[in-house]
């Protein structure tokens, strides 16, 4: 199987790209993916999430080998990787409340919480499974640009495969978040297209409370959801082609957006561009 980096070499869509376009900010999408502007900094949430993910990956690979990952080993690994992350990237933006040290403490607790909630009776079928699949709409039209991505893990439970995704979250998830999230739609679509099997899907969320809380949110999708997702991608393609990007003013992610400098000047450059074209 190709690696995710192999698949990234070709023009592609991904869950994070579609989600960024529609749910975060289409202008941020454009700065990052179309105009390829260098981000001013690395948001701490991104750096933290990356290390959390790597430790979770180690836990499930250990489980796949038939061993039980220990909470202490997971915490130690987080510590080591977090130190390394900071050494390799001196551009991580912290703030008054979230410092490198608070992240280290919180991270150790979060991965220990995740380790404590692993079910050793589940059979791990895959960890970090990359995919690339064509997008096909309800009429059978095939889009030229594929959907790519990577499943965090796949386990078998009572004979049925279940795709899982690790998340660390600042607060508890609302009840219907998983139901409306685009990620299960994309991942279930891909898995079914590759295997012909419709698996289950669950988010393993560890909430960053003082004492971390583990939540599991299970969800499923129908063909209708898949067709809706493909229509969204078609719409995004159309908007990208026409460079219809707009800032999500007062968006939740504005505070940690590494493109705020470009965003501040966007309207001036955009107006000049339109004026020259007229």
């Amino acid at each position, binding site marked *: 199987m190709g690696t995710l980096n192999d698949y990234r070499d070709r023009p592609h869509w991904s869950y994070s790209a579609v989600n960024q376009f529609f749910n975060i900010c289409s202008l941020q999408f454009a700065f990052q993916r179309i105009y390829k502007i260098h981000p001013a900094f690395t948001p701490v949430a991104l750096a933290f999430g990356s290390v959390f993910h790597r430790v979770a990956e180690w836990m499930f690979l250990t489980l796949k080998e038939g061993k039980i990952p220990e909470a202490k080993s997971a915490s130690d690994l987080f510590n080591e990787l977090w130190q390394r992350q900071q050494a390799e990237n001196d551009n991580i933006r912290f703030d008054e409340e979230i410092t490198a040290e608070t992240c280290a403490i919180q991270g150790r607790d979060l991965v220990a919480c995740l380790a404590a909630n692993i079910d050793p009776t589940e059979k791990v079928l895959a960890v970090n499974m990359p995919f690339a699949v064509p997008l096909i709409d309800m009429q059978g039209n095939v889009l030229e640009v594929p959907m790519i991505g990577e499943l965090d893990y796949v386990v078998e439970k009572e004979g049925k495969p279940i795709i899982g995704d690790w998340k660390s979250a600042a607060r508890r998830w609302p009840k219907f978040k998983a139901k409306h999230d685009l990620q299960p739609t994309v991942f279930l679509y891909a898995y079914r*297209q590759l295997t012909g099997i419709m698996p289950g899907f669950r988010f393993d969320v560890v909430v960053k409370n003082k004492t971390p809380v583990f939540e599991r949110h299970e969800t499923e999708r129908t063909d209708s959801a898949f067709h809706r997702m493909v229509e969204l991608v078609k719409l995004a393609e159309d908007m990208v082609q026409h460079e219809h990007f707009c800032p999500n003013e007062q968006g939740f992610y504005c505070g940690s957006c590494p493109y705020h400098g470009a965003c501040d000047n966007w309207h001036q450059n955009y107006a000049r561009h339109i004026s020259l074209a007229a």
Partner: protein
Amino acid sequence: MLKLNTSYSKKVPVDGKEYSSQSYHASVEVELPDGMTAEQIQNKIHDTFLLVKGSVEEELTGKTSNGNGQQNPPAQAPGKTNGNSGAKVTNKQVKFITDLATQKGIQLTELNAGIKKRFNVDGLYDLSTKQASELLDELKQSKAA
């Protein structure tokens, strides 16, 4: 005698230099056998173009194998490939294959299973351009039949 001349060129912006680009170009000339139908010629043009385009893209992305597991830097002489390690199938080829398969009523999972068995790769996007070309020819032939 019919001759087919196919070429592909691409301009790539030069990093750090505004309004500058480097141009890459490749062309190939092949002789076509007599008696080909218009559709066969059209198919040959399509396949040859994909081959040339794929090769140029391969050079630019430095994806050619140098035989010891490392990748050649971009814009060097084409590396020798073995097995399925040639230029990867293009998105256009996959679309063409999937369109043909859909027209023939072949489910995508069925298509992927066939590809896995025949070429020993996991899915459509793991094919090389050459393998994709073979698959396209077969799908077209079975369509004509």
